[in-house]
């Protein structure tokens, strides 16, 4: 089991992702999985600011919507080519995130969460009311599918879209792994574990928190842009706080502050929901209490609990082994 950590485990996951279309019996399954990947990408970003840095940002879905709307508005109203609009989506999300992050990160703990919840609401209301820009409640209709690259590949079938989304998820996970294992990632964890101690160690709190915030919202922005190109229709509802709550649940089920946890959560929970189809509308009658039970009895999620169990086993087996397990 121990070998599943590190490169081998990731290679297995990669293979599973590549081979999934062979298992999927129809396009519907591919669509479900692709949507799950898109939200997994956004959840990875959310996990960076919540799980690693310890700042519970409730405006995450709002930033996802900003990325999605940037792409939608640019391609539909201004006929910008898809991939240029895609780049712009990340840039706009970062540009909006910068001042918002700077203001909101001056607040700590609960204040930060409540403030970002309000920021999310502002984003939602602006999208809904600014009809000349965002088409208001009607939404952005007829977003083009991602354009093919140099005539070699085109993205007009569910299968090619699946691989496109999968590609971005792999890149996202790879980049996040690099960040999490770097000095920067450790700096974020230090801030989460105690910001006063981190500051005493010479860590510039504001600069690092803002960095985490910006990386996190760019993940959201690009996930939103992919969502726009995939679903090809956008409504203000994407910015609603309940999408942030969904992503929080994915993160928590898998394990906060681990790399693999949010990924597993974001992919498995939508499938469970698929099988509880009759519950679609009312899924939170089950997931609400589940969330509470998880927080009370399993606060580190599935992956976190497994890691803790493994660490305990390791320390029992070899009392002198001080090595820390990593996800």
């Amino acid at each position, binding site marked *: 089991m121990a070998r599943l950590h590190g490169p081998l485990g990731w290679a297995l996951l990669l293979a599973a992702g590549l081979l999934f279309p062979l298992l999927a019996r129809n396009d519907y399954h591919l669509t479900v999985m692709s949507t799950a990947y898109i939200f997994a990408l956004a959840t990875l970003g959310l996990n960076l600011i919540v799980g690693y840095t310890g700042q519970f940002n409730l405006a995450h879905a709002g930033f996802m919507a900003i990325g999605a709307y940037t792409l939608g508005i640019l391609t539909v109203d201004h006929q910008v080519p898809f991939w240029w609009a895609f780049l712009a989506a990340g840039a706009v999300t970062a540009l909006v995130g910068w001042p918002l992050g700077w203001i909101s990160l001056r607040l700590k703990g609960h204040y930060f969460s409540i403030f970002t919840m309000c920021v999310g609401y502002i984003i939602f209301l602006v999208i809904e009311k600014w009809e000349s820009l965002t088409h208001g409640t009607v939404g952005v209709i007829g977003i083009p599918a991602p354009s093919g690259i140099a005539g070699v590949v085109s993205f007009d079938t569910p299968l090619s879209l699946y691989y496109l989304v999968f590609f971005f998820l792999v890149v996202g996970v790879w980049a996040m792994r690099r960040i999490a294992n770097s000095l920067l990632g450790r700096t974020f964890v230090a801030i989460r574990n105690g910001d006063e101690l981190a500051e005493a160690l010479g860590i510039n709190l504001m600069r690092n928190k803002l960095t985490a915030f910006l990386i996190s919202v760019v993940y959201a922005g690009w996930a939103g842009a992919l969502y726009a190109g995939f679903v090809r229709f956008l409504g203000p509802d994407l910015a609603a706080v309940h999408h942030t709550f969904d992503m929080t649940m994915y993160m928590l089920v898998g394990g906060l502050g681990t790399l693999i946890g949010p990924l597993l959560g974001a992919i498995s929970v939508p499938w469970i929901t698929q099988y509880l189809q009759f519950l679609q509308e*009312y899924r939170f009658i089950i997931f609400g209490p589940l*969330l509470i039970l998880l927080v009370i009895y399993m606060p580190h999620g599935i992956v976190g609990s497994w890691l803790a169990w493994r660490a305990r086993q390791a320390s029992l087996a070899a009392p002198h082994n001080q090595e820390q397990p990593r996800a």
Partner: protein
Amino acid sequence: MDIFLQQVLNGLTLGGIYSLVALGLTLVYGILHVPNFAHGAFYMVGAFASFLLMDKLGLNYWLAMLGSAVAVAALAAVAERLVFHPLRHASGLHPMIAAIGLLLFLEAGAQALWGADFQRMSTPYTGIIEMGGVTAPVQRLLIIGAAFTLMLMLHLFLTRTVMGSTIIAMAQNREGASLVGIDANRVAMLTFAVSGVLAAVAATLYAPINLVYPAMGHLVITKAFVIIILGGMGSVPGAIVGGLIIGFAESFGAFYISTDYKDIIAFMALVVILSFRPQGIFKQGAH
């Protein structure tokens, strides 16, 4: 001038409702240091309880309000016991997520039981009073009167009764309160129950000039959070003053700026104020 007075009246109505909701939130925060995201769901359940008591059992308005207050108080106390009590030693993040779980559960439950449709609550007070050129619907005057009466009663309860004083004592110093023999568990449940009563009454007062539906709590609770941040989390006078500020800002903003953007005004006010004073208006020093 008449139009100005009309806006004052609207501001007082909104402010009264917002203050009641924010008071419940701030009391709970003072005791448990949990931002109770589920408070908006208590508000929604309160509106539905009154609506059903009037619609199905034919109770009159005031009895329905009383019934709903009791029901939501019980719900809030049970929620404290089952959800927040086990998490009292957990880090800041987890109780927040648990509150979100409770919120999602209550909303989905309301939708499953009573449907997602908009319901209109009837009120016996449909008349309109003319005073010096200002037209005042009776329900609005009723809201103002009832809201401020309830605030006065809450003030008396907190300062003049032993039970109320235990809440204040717990909010001031948890260990100190335990040392003089105050049962922390009982106070926590009591505080949740009081917050439930405030939410239910606010919802029942406001529902007749608004609508009843499962998502009705969202905007109100978000504004209540704005209010308690402005007023200082845990501060009772802060919640009342903050509620009035937001109520007035909204009614005047809707009239003089734009009806479309009136809901944004409260949030913009928060963003602007916190940019200059990250600790809120009324709070001294940093938090």
